[in-house]
């Protein structure tokens, strides 16, 4: 290799080429990860804005901020954007995209062009949906239940469905890419049980993406055909069954919940081990429980339908399976806690994020048991109890993990350190704001407050006000990192290759990494999370 070529090879992926084309037509997984990060952040704040208006409206029992229809459109925007344009692609497509090849010691993902295309599909589909939803309004909720969505809802439903359908391909492409990369491109010596748990988590997530998303596509096709061509598969007038839609929809959308949370579990496993300076408790159990969740996650969708009129016995089976899927989650929670045992704990901001994840996930997970319990579910189904439960999982746990992970790998991604003090403040604001927002919702749920209500009986006002105030604090917890992370891009301290002295292949290369990730091929000789060896060097 000539010297110039060597220089070029060791040049950071960030500095090589800053023309528009170098970014928009890049096939470098690290740059695609950035493209995703930017789009996802935009969608996140859009969805968050909708949530803020909703919380503002709910400060008072009357409908005095927006009209009834506008309210319905707002929670539809919030749901659609947060689920499909933020949560599903969040960790896999940003951190996963960036880290998966690094962690397995590969030069790139198996199909780099497909990766870039998936970003285009995602962004175009997302923008299209947003445009449709904002200009003409969709008021079905993100669940699109028939016959409301097919025969009664606003016109733009068609456009929204097309947008979501298109975005589904991006999920599938990502899934295929990750699975093949994990199978075929691991560095020599990197056996399955030497993989970081983050890779396991993304692998399991990809399996779910690949197997569930097409069913959503099929369901959306059927909805579209019913709306556009009048082919009424779910139309009761033809002997059709609206509940069939719910079966097909939840066959995707329940596993989709695991698409959202599994990567978060992966991230937190990395963070906790690093700041406990010790290997994870029960590595095999952790890896296998991730797989178990992704498989069992497919057997429980009917628990969204306990009161919908599915057969009693189907309800029983789905309830039983739902208890089963809680078992591996319980194991994971226990193992994260046990990982702290005899560690050398460092309470950095990242660790605070990780530990809040464990706490919030425990609450969210246990209230999931309430919902799996048939008789209790009948009462709290479609109330704020459910809203609180899934926000504890998806926001409390997942977003916390995402932001925590972003901090942890920020030096690797940008080559800059963020201000630790501010990060701690933000982590605490997030934790406090989140609990203040959503814990009252458990209470009002059991008290009987149904979800998707614009107006409500006055008795619930006190809890709603608490929740809305909490949302304000939560917003600060989200805006702060945005500000200081952007600040650090320019003024942050330069990061060494491994600022946390963390294990894992991604820390063996420069921060930020060169274009092809590693200057030499990597080999792996030991187990993951070997912090003893690192610390005793």
């Amino acid at each position, binding site marked *: 290799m000539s010297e110039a070529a060597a220089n070029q090879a060791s040049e950071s992926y960030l500095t090589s080429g800053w023309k528009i084309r170098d970014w928009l037509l890049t096939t470098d997984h690290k740059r695609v990860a950035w493209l995703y990060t930017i789009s996802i952040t935009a969608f996140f704040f859009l969805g968050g804005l909708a949530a803020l208006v909703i919380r503002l409206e709910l400060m008072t029992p009357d409908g005095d901020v927006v009209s009834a229809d506008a309210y319905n459109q707002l929670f539809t925007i919030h749901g659609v954007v947060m689920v499909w344009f933020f949560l599903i692609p969040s960790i896999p497509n940003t951190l996963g995209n960036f880290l998966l090849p690094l962690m397995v010691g*590969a*030069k*790139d*993902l*198996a*199909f*780099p*062009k*497909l990766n870039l295309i998936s970003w285009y599909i995602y962004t175009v589909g997302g923008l299209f949906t947003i445009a449709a939803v904002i200009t003409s309004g969709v008021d079905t909720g993100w669940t699109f239940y028939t016959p409301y969505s097919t025969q009664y809802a606003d016109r733009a439903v068609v456009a929204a469905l097309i947008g979501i359908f298109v975005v589904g391909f991006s999920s*599938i492409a990502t*899934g*295929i*890419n990750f*699975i*093949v990369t994990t*199978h*075929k*491109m691991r560095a020599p010596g990197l056996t399955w049980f030497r993989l970081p748990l983050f890779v396991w988590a993304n692998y399991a997530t990809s399996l779910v993406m*690949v*197997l*569930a*998303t*097409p*069913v959503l*596509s*099929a*369901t959306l*096709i*059927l909805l579209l*055909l019913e709306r556009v*061509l*009048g*082919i*009424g*598969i779910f139309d009761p*007038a*033809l*002997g*059709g*069954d609206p509940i*069939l839609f719910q*079966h*097909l929809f939840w*066959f995707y959308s329940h596993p989709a919940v695991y698409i959202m949370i599994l990567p978060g579990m992966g991230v937190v496993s990395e963070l906790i081990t690093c700041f406990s300076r010790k290997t994870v408790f029960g590595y095999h159990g952790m890896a296998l429980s991730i797989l178990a969740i992704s498989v069992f996650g497919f057997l429980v969708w009917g628990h969204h339908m306990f009161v919908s009129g599915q057969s009693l016995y189907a309800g029983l089976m789905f309830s039983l399976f739902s208890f089963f899927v809680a078992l591996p989650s319980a194991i994971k929670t226990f193992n994260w806690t046990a990982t702290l045992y005899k560690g050398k704990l460092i309470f950095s901001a990242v660790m605070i994020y990780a530990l809040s994840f464990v706490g919030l996930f425990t609450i969210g997970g246990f209230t999931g048991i309430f919902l799996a319990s048939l008789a209790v579910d009948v009462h709290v189904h479609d109330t704020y109890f459910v809203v609180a439960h899934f926000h504890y999982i998806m926001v409390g746990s997942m977003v916390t993990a995402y932001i925590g992970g972003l901090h942890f790998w920020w030096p690797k991604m940008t080559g800059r350190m963020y201000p630790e003090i501010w990060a701690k403040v933000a982590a605490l604001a997030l934790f406090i704001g989140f609990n203040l927002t959503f814990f009252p919702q458990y209470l009002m749920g059991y008290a009987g407050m149904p979800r998707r209500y614009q107006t409500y009986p006055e008795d619930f006002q006190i809890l709603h006000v608490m929740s809305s105030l909490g949302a304000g604090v939560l917003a600060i917890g989200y805006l702060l990192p945005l500000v200081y992370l952007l600040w650090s891009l320019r003024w942050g301290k330069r990061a060494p290759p491994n600022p946390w002295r963390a294990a894992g292949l991604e820390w063996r290369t420069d921060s930020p990494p060169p274009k*092809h990730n590693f200057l030499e091929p990597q080999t792996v000789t030991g187990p993951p999370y070997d912090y003893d060896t690192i610390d005793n060097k």
Partner: protein
Amino acid sequence: MTTTPSTTSKAAPDEQFDDLTQQRQADLMGMWIFLATELMLFGGIFTGFTVYRFAYPEVFAEAATHLDLRLGTLNTALLVTSSLFMALAERAANAERRRLTLIFLIVTISIGVVFLGIKGYEWHHEYTENLMPILGLEFEYPGAHPDRAEMFFNFYYVLTGLHAVHMSIGLGMLSVLVVFTLRWRDPPRLGRQIQMNGLYWAFVDVVWVFIFTTLYLLRA
């Protein structure tokens, strides 16, 4: 995945791979996973069909007799023949025999087009018999339970339509392959591409087998 023409030299893999074996394995695996997703796509609709087939067995069996079994059978035979030629084209390409590859590909495409033609003819026939409950067209069904029979025809159009869409995509990709074969730049690469498309084409055939059996054959 691999349909883009390449100007790289013959033996080199794409830059993210270490060698050609790795690349070929990755391509194959990616394709198979993609086919699994396609299976789930059709599977979602088949699940719906199963539900109603179970709920209204007599009506559906009766409604099936209104489809043209002869044309359906002919189409099934045609499609498997095109799959055969696709498989032969793959073998010809691997043996680096350009003319033969070209002929096999063109035969495959021609049979595919004939398939779609016959399918279109069937649809037209059903349209003239007022058995096309689409876009508010009148649906006149001579048997019992016209509403549930309409449900049967809904599935008929969704399944055959979605299948036809897949056929068209496949035909488009095969046409691109014909162009590549004419150029004959990187035969091993072309062999891989033909193999990938062959998988897709055969898969579309597998789906058709089930569409044909459940819609045409499960009749009264």
